[in-house]
């Protein structure tokens, strides 16, 4: 499974991209977040408040109940802030 992290999730976890092989019982996004949180302090801190974590699977936004398969590209990131100029 290809994992991608963006913005402060990337900085807390310490890498932008990694190839992982979660065990077969990791069947959904929630399972993946639980499993990653066990991997170390950076992961635990990054994934502590899941209300600020967003997920894309194969480049589509998905919910935490989305099923996963080993070939998926899974990206974790904060809510997008958009690219335009001012806040207005």
């Amino acid at each position, binding site marked *: 499974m290809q994992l991608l992290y963006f913005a402060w999730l990337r900085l807390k976890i310490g890498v932008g991209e990694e190839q992982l092989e979660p065990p077969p019982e990791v069947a959904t996004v929630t399972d993946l977040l639980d499993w990653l949180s066990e991997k170390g302090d950076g992961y635990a801190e990054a994934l502590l408040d899941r209300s600020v974590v967003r997920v894309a699977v194969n480049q589509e936004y998905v919910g935490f109940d989305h099923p996963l398969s080993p070939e998926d590209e899974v990206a974790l*990131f904060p809510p*997008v802030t*958009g*690219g*335009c*100029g001012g806040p207005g």
Partner: protein
Amino acid sequence: MIRIQREDFDVGVELSALSRGQHNIGGIAAFVGVVREIGSDGAPGAMTLEHYPGMTERKLIEIEADALSRWPLDAVSIIHRYGRLEPGEQIVLVITASAHRTAALEACQFLIDWLKTKAPFWKFEETAGGGKWVDARSSDELATTRWLEMDGRGAG
């Protein structure tokens, strides 16, 4: 036409390129997003836009198709920059051309609103003390997730 690039763009050149060979255009609407010289904390500072290469292009192509299905447009151009941007630099350009003035203006606003709220970009603002990731949500939530760091440049 969709481009995600680090380099700056020339609005005049892009406008000419878009209208060339089009025979039914009555109005062209354009929006240029610029890095403000006064950041959200009141101090001027550069910012870095990080994006999700691949997904950004894919989502922009989808939203362009969405706009084309809603309005009678002759041409659409979207150019979005990423990387470190100084105050006053251009960030994004949206151009829409249509036989109909209202269609061009509405589609331009639609695309900009979408880019602002849904496109996979994350913004890091440099400040005197280092910088912070800009949060998309309400200001009190923002306060809890604000986070200072010294090396904030995105990989984007």
